[in-house]
């Protein structure tokens, strides 16, 4: 499907929002405004946005500990996200979830998930609902290369095949699970081939190229929407920073990091659309200004917001003892 100018703007907006949001998370974390841990999605923007680009609010995604980018790509409100990440009233989960548990059912976002391999089985279930109700919708499970070794993930692959569920397994291979390289921890020559051996189509995609991701996802979606079953994508991308905010990354040489930065999906997108004269720099600059303002406003709001009311400690669970 050909992309209109508006589509392209939407894609850029998505990727750039993630970029600015995550850079800001990084900064606010250093300032002490973000409690706990944060895992940022910098460098992987084209993956989340490419996968979610043609999804509707009635399609579902299940995410990971590195979920901010997926949330934004799926349409979650950045103010609600920033409030949540800072543990404030009005956050998308009322401040009870935090960075690793942002969810928004109204957007088909089934939750970030702090358990590696937690989402794939759940996504199979969401896909099953679509199959039984014949909605033509799908469910996507985002997982990392690390998560691709978790037993729950393998089970989900097989289950989706057996039940013919329209689940799409998006394996974001950023080369690392925490501080260990995929080249060590994934014994298989290829995550995509391993998925394929479970009985579903699978392909490897350049995860720094929005267009490539979206096109591959289009093939997965076509199969899913037609009720033909699951699909797997191995999306090869780069994690610009450490595993969590603050990881010094002595295990990665500067050259490797530089190489990753040189393949930054955002300038790549800009170059491609401007060179092809689909959008011009002014269009993109306007978007960037917008987003800077939007994220700035979200941060201001969140920093100033109060903590959740203490009485909410024991709500949203069925009983107290």
């Amino acid at each position, binding site marked *: 499907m050909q992309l209109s100018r508006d589509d392209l703007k939407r894609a850029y907006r998505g990727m750039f929002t993630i970029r600015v949001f995550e850079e800001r998370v990084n900064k606010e974390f250093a300032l002490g405004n973000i409690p706990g841990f944060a895992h940022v999605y910098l460098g992987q923007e084209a993956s989340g946005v490419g996968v979610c680009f043609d999804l509707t609010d009635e399609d*579902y995604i*299940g995410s990971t500990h590195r979920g901010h980018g997926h949330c934004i790509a799926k349409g979650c409100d950045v103010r609600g996200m920033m409030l949540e990440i800072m543990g404030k009233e009005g*956050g*998308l*989960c*009322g*401040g*009870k*979830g935090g960075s690793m*548990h942002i*969810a*928004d*059912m109204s957007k088909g976002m*089934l*939750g970030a*998930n702090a*358990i590696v391999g*937690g989402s*794939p*089985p*759940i*996504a*199979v*279930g*969401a*896909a*099953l*609902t*679509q199959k*039984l*109700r014949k909605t033509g919708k799908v*469910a996507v499970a985002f997982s990392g290369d690390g998560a691709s070794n978790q*037993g*729950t993930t393998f*089970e*989900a692959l*097989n*289950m989706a095949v*057996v*039940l013919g*569920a329209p689940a799409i397994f998006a394996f974001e291979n950023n080369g690392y699970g925490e501080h260990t390289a995929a080249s060590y921890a994934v014994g298989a020559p290829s995550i995509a081939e391993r998925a394929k051996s479970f009985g579903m189509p699978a392909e490897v995609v350049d995860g720094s190229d929005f267009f490539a991701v979206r096109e591959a996802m289009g093939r997965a979606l076509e199969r899913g929407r037609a009720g033909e079953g699951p699909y797997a994508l191995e999306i090869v991308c780069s994690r610009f920073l450490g595993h969590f905010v603050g990881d010094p990354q002595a295990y990665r040489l500067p050259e490797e990091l530089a190489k990753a930065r040189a393949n930054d999906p955002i300038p790549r997108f800009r170059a491609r659309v401007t060179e092809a004269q689909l959008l011009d720099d002014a269009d993109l600059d306007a978007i960037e200004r917008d987003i800077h303002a939007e994220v700035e406003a979200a941060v201001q709001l969140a920093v100033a917001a109060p903590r959740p009311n203490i009485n909410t400690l024991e*709500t*949203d*669970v*069925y*009983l107290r*003892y």
Partner: protein
Amino acid sequence: MSKKTYSQAINEALRQEMRRDPNVIIIGEDVAGGHGASGETGGVGGVFGLTKSLYTEFGPERVLDTPISESAIIGAASGAAVTGLRPVAEIMFVDFVGVCFDQIYNQAAKFRYMFGGKAKTPMVIRTAIGAGLRAGAQHSQTLHPLFTMVPGLKVVMPANPYDAKGLLISAIRDDDPVIFMESKLLYGMEGEVPDEAYRVPFGEANIAREGKDLTFVAFGAMVQRALAVAQTLAGEGISVEVIDPRTTSPLDEEAILDSVAKTGRLVVIDESPPRCSLAGDISSLVAEKGFRSLKAPIGKVTCPHTPVPFAPNLEDEFMPNPRRIEEAARAVLAYR
């Protein structure tokens, strides 16, 4: 109203709820049976036959056979539940929860709270519990403390056919994840069960026998044993009240405290090992909130701190049996 077994009561509850609500589906290993085989499909209905003939009536879209992948079964159920279905998943023996516990306690149980009340996870996990079938250490556990301790789960232990049907219907209509624990020893138990659908509410104990000298609290298959000992003691003029809380979480604290307020003496009978057990849990409730009523130490009858042994004589001694229950009761009664 007619005589039905515990198994039949459960099967009937499933069938009636599936007829009533098209969102109710069943998912598990061999819940239909025979898929891909040369002969009959759907004739098995679960290893214990609890889902028998549901496949025939509701077909493959609503009675789903799965691979042996419990994490994917539970995940599929919870993912289906948060997106609008009401799955009833089967974990054949509760002993198998170890391979899928994360999907229960970290995922399904936590969605509602962790997502700030915005997710609803209406699912039931049916599972068979208990020793006594000589099935060995990995097929004979109870493990209800494992679920009772988890915030966000409701835990049901029906002790008779009437409760089995009514509690299962409540479970299916509940919007939170419910663990429905079926005592294998009770599958053949008969009782009067209404033909129509009805609910037995959660958190309301059944006073299985009234009494004034001593309170027994027991769950599931242990209720019959408690009643039997109560009957023996009645022969000596000792009047025992038997409380069956029906659900371990929510727990009808009031019924237990009221009974102990009357009798002053308590023995808790439970088929889990002693540490961090349901027996200890209820004892500690009374030691905190019913202390003034207590006339004697609180007795506990549990399994020993061992895995379940295979040999029949060892297993019979392992389980809370009438002799051990009676001994505990006499010790508590003798205390002055």
